[in-house]
């Protein structure tokens, strides 16, 4: 059972305790992060059983590699943080999430990276069956550097907070995401939905940062296009700017 005195502990303290062999501390960390890990696995794999497997693998793998976790977040410009040595005070800032990733602590980001790699393995296994290579799919192909230009441009009729309440909008989000190919979907999920940095996303998927950036932009543009066709106000539709005169 979890030690009740642990509940109040900061994440950095819990990680340190777990690294010293304290199981209740690790159990609290598991409880805090399990739904997040499960969520990303489910979004990537779209299969409850596989998502459960990946979640379990993630925490078991975390146990094995706990000693190697240094609380360092490879982030977008943010200075790397490290847990101070045991016994030193002033660790208050350790739980500050990266500004690019609201709600994601360093330990959380570490777990998500492990989960993404485990999910990728499941996809690779599925691919072997389908006889197509994901590694091939993860390469940036010729012509991919070319960006699609926005076509349907219009302000949305409602703000995201209101839209998010509607069931048909959530269906639209799922559908638009499914229309992305795997590589774009994975990158968008890890970076924009889960809040990993560009570098963390690249590390999780074994891609270059440049590759992740190009893919992310294409994913964002494609999703924007699709959502705006439904959510945009046709009466306020704008034509793309014509540069022939400038």
């Amino acid at each position, binding site marked *: 059972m979890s030690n009740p005195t642990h509940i109040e502990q900061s994440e950095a303290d819990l990680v340190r305790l777990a690294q010293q062999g304290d199981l209740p501390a690790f159990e609290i960390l598991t409880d805090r992060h399990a*739904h997040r890990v499960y969520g990303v696995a489910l979004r990537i794999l779209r299969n409850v059983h596989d998502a459960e497997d990946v979640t379990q693998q993630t925490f078991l793998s975390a146990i094995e590699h706990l000693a190697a976790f240094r609380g360092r977040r490879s982030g977008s410009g943010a200075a790397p943080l490290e847990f101070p040595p045991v016994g030193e005070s002033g660790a208050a800032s350790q739980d500050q999430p990266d500004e690019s990733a609201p709600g994601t602590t360093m330990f959380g980001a570490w777990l998500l990276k492990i989960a993404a790699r485990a999910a990728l393995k499941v996809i690779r296994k599925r691919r072997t069956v389908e006889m197509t290579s994901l590694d091939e799919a993860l390469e940036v192909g010729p012509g991919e550097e070319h960006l699609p230009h926005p076509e349907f441009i219009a302000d949305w009729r409602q703000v995201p907070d209101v839209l998010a309440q509607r069931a048909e909008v959530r269906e639209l*989000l799922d559908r638009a995401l499914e229309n992305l190919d795997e590589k774009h979907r994975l990158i968008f999920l890890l970076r924009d939905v889960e809040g990993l940095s560009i570098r963390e996303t690249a590390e999780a998927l074994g891609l270059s940062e440049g590759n992740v950036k190009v893919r992310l932009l294409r994913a964002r*543009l494609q999703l924007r296009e699709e959502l705006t066709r439904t959510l945009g106000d046709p009466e306020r539709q704008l034509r793309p700017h014509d540069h022939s005169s400038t």
Partner: protein
Amino acid sequence: MKCSELLAMLNEYVDGTVDPAICEEFERHMAGCNPCQVVVDNIRNTIILYKGNEVHELPIPFQKKLHAAVRKHWQEVCPGDKPE
């Protein structure tokens, strides 16, 4: 700056990692280009909408299974086993 140049730097602008000098140029373009302004706004809303997407609760039986597996594996691996 042309619309296509703005498009190429959209990530950096939306994520707030763009160079200040380029950021200024970016904003000057948007002030005079309504379509680009709307595209940037659409992209921001798209990200917000997906970020706010539902939280997946762990199925209760799996929660129990996970706890048991963690405890079992912990005993097997015993990390941070300190020499006394």
